[in-house]
Every structure is written in C-alpha cells, then in structure tokens.
C-alpha cells in the first residue's frame, strides 16, 4: 500500500466518523445535520450504484433510481442502525440490497462484495460527482395529488415543515404526518410492492 492510499483510507475513516455523528444528531430530530449527511452520502451512493450496475452488465441509466431508492431506504430504516456501531457498513449493506433489488426486478443476478463498496469511500473521484441534473420524473408522478403537493411544498420551502404548512394551509404536525406517509408510499411504489 502506498502512502497516498494510506492517507485516503485515513480520510475515509474520519469522514465515516463525522457521518456517524451527523446520523446520531439526525436520529434526535436535527434536520440540518440529517440534510448535511444525505447530501454528503448521495455522490458516494451514486458511485457505488454505478459500479454495481456496470459490474452486472447493465447500463447506468438506472443509477439515479438506485440512489433515490437507497436514500429512501436509509431514511425509512434508519432505526435499524445501532448508534453504537460504525455507520458505513450499515449504509453499504442497504445500498447493496437496493441495487440488487433493482437488478432482480430486471431479471439480473449479481454478486456485490461489500469490500468493493468500501473502496468507493476512499475513491476521491466519488466526491466530485455533483448533485445537479439528476432528475427522476417517475418518482413524483407515482404519488397521488395530495401527497405530491406535500412533498413538493416541503422541498420548495427548503425543508421547513412550518413554511410548507403555511403554503398548504395545513398545521405543521399534519404536514409532518402527511410527509412521512408520502415517503413510505414512495418507497413501496418504488419497490414494486403495493403501497
């Protein structure tokens, strides 16, 4: 192993630590930390998804589907992470599960060793993969009118449920409940299951 590799590995380790801290705050309801974590994870997940799809001999057209499904799964299953354990093995296991799920739905089988995903974190190129321009229309189209309105109002309000509530003439609590339901339904539709 070269010194550069060592440095990359050490950086990856300290980043994982930081992300675990952000997740702990998120589980205590800190939306800003949570957003920071998800923004940081998205490009890493994108690189991992691309690798998995390429290995399975699939085009990379579905990469953003895998990224969004993984983000939804991380979100809905976040209580399955044990805050006393490292964050990234949990993230990789979920990313792999979701990528294999997408491949399975396309009738492909693939093996994805976790070690290979670990390498993504030390891969500096992964961090350069920006967020802009990744659009999946299928996602919002699949939500019913009211659910879509809530999700859209929340992101138009910059993740403020209070402001989204004002926009929709709903109480903040009602927005939170509706948002949570919409996200669950989104994952169910995405997973090909019934809502």
């Amino acid at each position, binding site marked *: 192993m070269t010194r550069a590799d060592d440095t990359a590995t050490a950086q990856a380790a300290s980043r994982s630590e930081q992300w675990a801290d952000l997740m702990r705050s998120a589980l205590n309801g800190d939306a800003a930390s949570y957003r920071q974590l998800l923004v940081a994870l998205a490009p890493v997940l994108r690189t991992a998804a691309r690798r998995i799809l390429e290995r399975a001999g699939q085009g990379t057209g579905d990469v953003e589907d895998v990224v969004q499904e993984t983000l939804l799964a991380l979100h809905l299953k976040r209580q399955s992470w044990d805050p006393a354990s490292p964050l990234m093995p949990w993230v990789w*296991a979920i990313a792999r599960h979701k990528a294999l799920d997408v491949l399975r739905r396309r009738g492909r089988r693939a093996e994805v060793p976790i070690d290979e995903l670990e390498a993504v974190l030390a891969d500096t190129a992964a961090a350069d993969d920006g967020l802009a321009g990744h659009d999946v229309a299928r996602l919002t189209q699949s939500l019913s009118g009211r659910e879509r309105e809530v999700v859209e109002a929340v*992101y138009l309000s910059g993740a403020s449920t209070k402001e989204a509530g004002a926009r929709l003439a709903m109480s903040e609590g009602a927005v939170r409940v509706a948002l949570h339901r919409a996200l669950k339904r989104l994952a169910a539709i995405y997973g090909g299951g019934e809502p």
Partner: protein
Amino acid sequence: MKTDELILALSADARPRGPSLAVALAVAVTLGAIAAAIGMQLTLGIRPDVLAALGSPRFLFKFVETAALAVVAVRLAARMSRPGAELWSAEVGLFVPALLLFTAVVLELASVPEAAWERRLVGTNWAVCLMAVPSFSLVPLGLLLWALRRGASESGALTGLVAGLAAGGIGAFFYAAHCPDDSPLFVAVWYTIAIAGVAGLGALLGARILRW
C-alpha cells in the same frame, strides 16, 4: 423529482416515528408471552400436579430449554434486522439450546433403562403437543414479525425462520406448564417438530412481510 429535492423532503422528516427496533421487540416478546400464557390457561390449563413437578429436574428442563431458545433466537433475529451487523456471535447462540437438549437426551438415555426409552419418547400427549405449541406460538410470531418490520433484514425468509424459532420457544415454554410428558426424549422429538413447524411458517410469512 431531483435527488436534492428528495433529500430536502427526507431531512424534513428527520425525527424517527414510533418505537425503536429494540423497544418493539421487547413489547412483542412481553405481549406474546402474556398471550401464550392466557391461551394455555384458558384451553389446557396448568397440570394439576405442578407443585410436585417443580421438584423434578426433567420438568424444569423444559422451561430452561424453551426459554433459552426464545432468548437466543430473538437476539439473532434482531441482529439480522440490522444491515451490515456482524452475525456470527449471535448465530453461535443457537448452539446453546441445541447443546442443552443434546446433553439432556444423553443424560436421560444413561439414567433410564432401555426398555423405557420408547414409552418416554412417545409419551402420552404428543398429538396435543403438536397442536398446542404452534397455536400458542401464533400471537408471539405475529408480534415478532410486526416488530421486525422496523428492521431491515437482508433475507426476510431467514429472519422470519429465526423469529419462528423464537415464537415456537415462547409457545412451547407455556405449553410445558401443561405438558405431562417430562422426558427430554419427548421434548427432543415432539417439541422440536412443533417448533420447526412454527419456524417454517415464520419463513413463509417473513419472506413477504419483511420485504423492503
């Protein structure tokens, strides 16, 4: 929807809702045990000679065995519901009830004359055992699967199977209070068959219910 928009929507929903996996499992085990106890008492009832039986190591062994199975299986199912978690140490736990049962069978074979083996193995009540253990396990199984939905198992069928072992252990624990057959030979055959049935049902249900 763009991915950064999705992230905004997710971050607005930061605080988790509902109980954690550990709390949900604790609730499931407690309520499941209460349901199995009530079910047993309402249908079969504790055996009349229970006070005398408490002095018998064979009678007590049935509780130790089934409780051990329930405990290690719940632990393993919980671990299997945490993606990326190390499973080995929890999997090894399954050897505890297996070794307990093996030891008890060896001791029984050593201490009872060969002529009595068959009578002890067949027992008096095996048909009731095969009906009652799965029946008392149904509510615990349902509750455990409900709790495990908070987790994220890589294989719903396998986790369901382990949940079935746990539920079977709980059901058998309470059936044991009625069961007039105390020989480890009886336990090794009939309890095992009954619990295996519950585990199979758990696998079938888990494959559907624990998908995500």
